């Protein structure tokens, strides 16, 4: 009796262990996503400070130096700030980007006069304080000193501090100033690299899969190719990075930091994934269809390209999308071929120096400014959402197009 009781208890305990394991994994995923999204969401807004701009002559933007003029306007707002140090404190509340925004404002009002409140980009320290990332401790807050806070308080009393949509994050290139840093350049870099990776790995992978599955005689060579591909799929990605470094950069002398090299390296890395997926998709096409085609007089190649391949395509595409999604998130090989440079320009083609989105995340995560933390999370959000969409497409493709035989 006692024995059965303890056995049943053991059974229950065992089941609880299993349940706990599954829930731990799910909870960990939840914590990870929650942490990233809760940190990153605030980066989509950005602090702006309103400045009263009053220019009564008709504007000729080429004659006005936006930097000095903006400072003049600021001084007009706070006539009581007289010493150089005080004035400098006032200017320091604004980002260097404020000058560019002011320049745009002047250009937009060419030949007219301006009178009213306009909002300009605040510095990252102000931004973090406004969002509550750093709290006021004594008479300072984070890197904001008491003098800066005093002036900021005056702005806040007049309700001139506002959160606007962060247009730099998605539409700007990288910058040393967190408030002006964006991921557009990195997204372009990723786009070019993935395009190259797809162009190289997809045809090669599909042709290899067809050959191994349909044409190769079972001999030593096909055995070697097969084990070789299975092993390549498990080679650490950083080794592919070293391959890219040794072959594409040192041997072929291709330019460093270029998405072309990154794409070729990622393409080699994705190739095994595509081959394995394509093989299983080709294998799942029923032989009866191929036999019917051959029976009606198709040659082997005709059968493959007219019947087997179209029927296997959904499976091949699903596998390819999953492989490409992996490649998009891959960082280590890109570090090896020098796609970690600080690139301010948005790349215009696969030969221009660029970073990629995951590398940008790595670079931002590594930078000392605290304001980059939320931007890193925001960049991760963009990456994860994109990967999620890709995977949804893959699942949809499989559900929609794949036939059950």
């Amino acid at each position, binding site marked *: 009796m006692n024995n059965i009781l303890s*056995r*049943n208890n*053991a*059974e229950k*305990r*065992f089941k609880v262990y*299993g*349940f706990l*394991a*599954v829930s731990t*994994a*799910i909870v960990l*995923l939840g914590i990870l996503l929650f*942490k990233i999204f809760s940190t990153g969401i605030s980066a989509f807004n950005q602090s702006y400070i309103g400045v009263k701009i009053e220019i009564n002559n008709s504007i000729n933007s080429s004659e006005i130096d936006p930097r000095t003029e903006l400072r003049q306007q600021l001084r007009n707002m706070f006539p009581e700030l007289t010493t150089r140090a005080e004035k400098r404190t006032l200017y320091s509340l604004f980002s260097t980007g404020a000058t560019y925004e002011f320049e745009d404002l002047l250009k937009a009002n060419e030949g007219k006069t301006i009178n009213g409140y306009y909002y300009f980009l605040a510095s990252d320290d102000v931004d973090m304080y406004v969002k509550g990332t750093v709290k006021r401790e004594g008479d300072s807050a984070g890197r904001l000193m008491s003098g800066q806070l005093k002036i900021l308080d005056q702005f806040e009393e007049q309700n001139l501090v506002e959160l606007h949509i962060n247009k730099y994050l998605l539409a700007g290139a990288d910058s040393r100033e967190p408030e002006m840093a964006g991921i557009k350049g990195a997204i372009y870099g990723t786009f070019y690299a993935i395009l190259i990776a797809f162009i190289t790995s997809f*045809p090669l992978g599909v*042709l*290899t899969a*067809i*050959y*191994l599955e349909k*044409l*190769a005689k079972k001999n030593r060579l096909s055995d070697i*190719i097969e*084990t*070789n591909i*299975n*092993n*390549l799929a*498990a*080679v*650490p*990605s*950083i*080794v*592919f990075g*070293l*391959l890219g*470094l040794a*072959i594409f950069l040192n041997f072929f002398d291709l330019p460093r930091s270029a998405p072309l090299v990154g794409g070729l390296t990622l393409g080699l890395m994705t*190739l*095994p994934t595509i081959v394995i997926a394509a093989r299983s998709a080709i294998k799942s096409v029923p032989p009866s269809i191929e036999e019917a085609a051959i029976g009606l007089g198709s*040659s*082997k*190649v005709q059968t493959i390209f007219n019947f087997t391949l179209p029927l296997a395509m959904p499976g091949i595409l699903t596998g390819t999308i999953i492989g490409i999604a992996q490649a998009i*998130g891959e*960082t*280590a090989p890109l*570090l*090896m071929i020098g796609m*970690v440079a600080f690139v301010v320009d948005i790349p215009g083609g696969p030969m221009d120096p660029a970073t990629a989105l*995951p*590398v940008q*995340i*790595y670079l931002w*995560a*590594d930078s000392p400014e605290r304001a980059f933390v939320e931007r*890193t999370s925001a960049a*991760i959000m963009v*990456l994860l959402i994109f990967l999620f969409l890709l*995977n949804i497409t893959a699942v949809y493709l499989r559900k929609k197009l794949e036939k059950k035989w």
Partner: protein
Amino acid sequence: MSIEFILLTIIGLSAYSFYISKKKAAAISAINGAEIHSQPNYHGMYAAFLTISPALVLLIVWSFIEDTIITMRLRDYFSDITEPSIANFYIEGVINFVDDVNSKAMDHVNFFTATEYYKSTMHLNLLLKSIVLVMLTIIALRYSFKLISADFKARDLFEDVVIKVMNIASIFAIFITIGIVLSLLFETLRFFESVPVQDFLFGTHWSPQMSIREDQVGSSGSFGAVPVFTGTILISIIAMSVAGPIGLFSAIYLSQYASNRVRSFAKPIIEVLAGIPTVVYGFFAVITVGPFFREMGIFFDIEGFSSESALIAGSVLGIMIIPFIASLTDDALSAVPRSLKEGSLAMGATLSETTTRVIIPASFHGIVGSFLLAFSRAIGETMIVVMAAGFAANLTANPFDAVTTVTVQIVGLLTGDQEFDSAKTLSAFALAFVLFFLTLILNVISLSIVKKYREQYE
């Protein structure tokens, strides 16, 4: 006229060849009815292939040869320089000066005569190349057009070409492996010219930075990789002790206990963990797990708790490999024949007893295989450890200490600017070589275990 223009011309000619050959074949078939061997399309495609291929082959060969010849000729202008690497430097300067507007002239008596020579030769070369390539294409076009007749077996020939192309594509995968091995091997051998093998494999002091100074070259002990290997293994073991139990029990629960609804909901969620880029895990380690463990360290008053401790990197790495273990073990458990499980249950064993005494022993090979694969993943993983573990190589088994890994060192040694010949950069290749072979052996063993075991029940 540039190389792109020549290529476009050749492609255009090949398209034209397709068109006229197809038309000719169609005309023949219209006269002879069904007598023609291949369909017009095949005639067209084979003709297009014949037209384009000689020019492409020649173009590749030509490009290789022209480089060698030009460099040899330019070498004569700098014959007063005896050191080959410096002469090459000047030759590159000449080429850059002509090709790139931004590059500056170099200080040498023959520099401008050399650039003039290079410019005129390249010009002539391009002209010659375009004429020869286009002529060759036209000859090939005429030849392929003439071949077409009612019993010309264009389809068979074209299909042979297609099969050859696929064969070459599949062999390419072998070239990747050969490329990896060779590129790692050469640099590794060069590394071992300056640092003895036994010092690298058995030395216990790793500080590659020291060898930058001239007088430090060959100083024994600075390339002893043992701390790097032990660090890698320590972090991987921590990762496995996180992922092993969670992955194994998840797989058991999902394959034996969970209802279909729970399974269809929980399995994809766990697999999402595998789809998250590792750089994201690295960031998670830095902003969440690191601070959490540090606070625990203060709370439990653990001395010497490093902010880059192996525990932080290892546990986040563990989270990352949970789905690998879970799904591979799930496969192994599901592959056990139902009859074994049902037999055990029918004898009165509870499900947990059946699992631990029948199903797990029956699928033991598969489970071991999945653990080995996960372990090899953990060893080769880069971004998490780069972001969460340190660069300092400590020889320690204490999980609270900072350790470094092979991948961290490779990234540290090869990012940033450095000359390619120093022992420091070469040591990265030696590390990668060890990493590659270690993971390869683990993979081969685990794949063969899994395969053998699968065959057992088929």
